[in-house]
């Protein structure tokens, strides 16, 4: 079972530049959450703060009863064993081949015999579809393969929490779809708490239980997927529909008068996508735990109602 992450009043700045302030949210245990936000709003910084790589100025992060912003270095390393993190480029060790990369955490933290290590590593490599690439060096493979290898490495210690830093950046749409399916299947199988940081709207609509949006140095909203997808908040609607009209501008933010004018121009001709997109469910081969069974049932009811409406 996953672990709940409780963030309270978190503020982070570099020098006198505030990245975000007063961020409070709770990532429910075992659920998939997505953190959205325009580029440069500090989504990756948020992720690094959650694992204690960066120290926030204010606020607390409680995981399994411990406030990780106040932990001593040594205890922090212990808590981090709960985490699996997929970095943007995989962050594989360049001097090791894929097999050694994925075996690395096992060899460092456990005293498992090499045969056991081999079994686990091959199982995880099979999970992410990398069988046959064991001997390849990270420099010799594509970005998508590096990501999947990074994911396999994040999985070997059976983490309670998995953080994904832009899993879909630099991948083609088909691979993104496969990766999303993989994330959903994983959640159904290992039941860990997932946090995905991304700016890919399509994934954010299909995959998570909860969505959060960072904008203008604040957490604009965090809540169940339905709540954000049907929200009337201008920033949320602009971002989820990927349009230019709204508070988010090219460089930073726009002034209020311009936003007003643009939104008025939209009225009537609102070509936004339908608010509710069907949710991505675990593939047929995966046994669904009760939580996912309930989600699937709810989706089926929704789908039926939509067909009836049409």
């Amino acid at each position, binding site marked *: 079972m996953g672990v709940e992450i409780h963030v309270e009043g978190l503020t982070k700045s570099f020098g006198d530049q505030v990245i975000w302030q007063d961020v409070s949210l709770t990532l429910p245990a075992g659920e998939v959450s997505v953190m959205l936000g325009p580029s440069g709003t500090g989504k990756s910084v948020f992720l690094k703060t959650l694992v204690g790589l960066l120290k926030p100025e204010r606020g607390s992060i409680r995981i399994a009863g411990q406030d990780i912003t106040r932990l001593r270095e040594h205890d922090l390393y212990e808590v981090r064993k709960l985490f699996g993190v997929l970095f*943007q*480029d995989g962050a594989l*060790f360049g001097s090791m081949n894929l097999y050694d990369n994925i075996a690395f955490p096992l060899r460092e933290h456990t005293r498992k015999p090499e045969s056991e290590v081999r079994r686990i590593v091959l199982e995880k490599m099979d999970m992410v579809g990398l069988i046959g690439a064991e001997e390849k060096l990270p420099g010799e493979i594509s970005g998508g393969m590096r990501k999947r290898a990074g994911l396999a490495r994040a999985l070997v210690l059976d983490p309670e929490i998995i953080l994904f830093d832009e899993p879909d950046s630099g991948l083609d749409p088909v691979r993104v779809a496969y990766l999303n399916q993989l994330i959903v299947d994983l959640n159904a199988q290992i039941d860990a708490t997932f946090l995905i940081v991304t700016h890919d709207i399509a994934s954010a609509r299909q995959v998570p239980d909860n969505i959060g949006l960072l904008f203008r140095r604040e957490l604009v909203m965090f809540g169940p997927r339905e709540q954000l997808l049907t929200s009337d908040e201008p920033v949320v609607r602009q971002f989820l529909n990927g349009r230019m009209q709204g508070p988010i501008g090219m460089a930073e933010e726009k002034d209020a008068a311009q936003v007003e004018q643009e939104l008025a121009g939209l009225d009537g001709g609102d070509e936004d996508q339908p608010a509710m997109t069907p949710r991505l469910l675990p593939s047929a081969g995966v046994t669904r735990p009760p939580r996912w069974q309930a989600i699937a049932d709810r989706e089926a009811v929704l789908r039926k109602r939509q067909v009836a409406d049409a």
Partner: protein
Amino acid sequence: MSLSPTGALRHSGSLFAMALDVLRTLPRRPFQVREFIQQAWFVASVTILPTALVSIPFGAVIALQIGSLTRQLGAQSFSGAASVLAVLREASPIVTALLIAGAGGTAICADLGARKIREEIDAMEVLGIDPIHRLVVPRVLATMLVAVLLNGLVSVVGVAGGYFFNVVLQNGTPGAYLASFTTLAQLSDLWAAELKALVFGAIAAIVASYKGLTAKGGPKGVGDAVNQSVVITFMLLFVTNFVLTAVYFQIVPQRG
């Protein structure tokens, strides 16, 4: 790197903090034997040849200088004694330090810096592994070991080079040269030199690791880090050398 005075202070502070971390992490199990051997081999392989090639002319220059000086003073019988002393006490630790910092330290700094900007170090910390324990401690120990061994190599090559130039090229007397070997130098000179090499190795590796682990700003950042690590190491080494030498003369009674 910021140019403000507080920036310089902060950097020195974090450098010392890391040196303390290395000391504190030193006894922690499990000791990274594999990494230690790999790094020792690596540092040795990049330093042995340049060290040998540098120490031959270095020994020769000292022999030439001392040869002409002793002739001017009319003390040719002491030329052997003086050149052994010069090579053993000063020349070999300094040559060792320069090569350890210039060849070994830069390689360490570039390696760690590249890992840092590719987020490998972050990934390692997230996997619950302390980079100081896993990467820095074995490198520091390996560099110290190699520095001590190199110092021995430089001493031997330097003394042999001195002998060759003094006896063969300056027509000195082999007997007198060899006989005067131990009139001024003593065994404690060798120990002091080895101790210096040990300290120099530690400083070079710690500075290189610190600069590597704090590299930022892409590939250019790694280049800057390597550059700064060499400059800082050289400055620290020469200051340390002065202090160690001064202390040595105070606590070890000299011959003659």
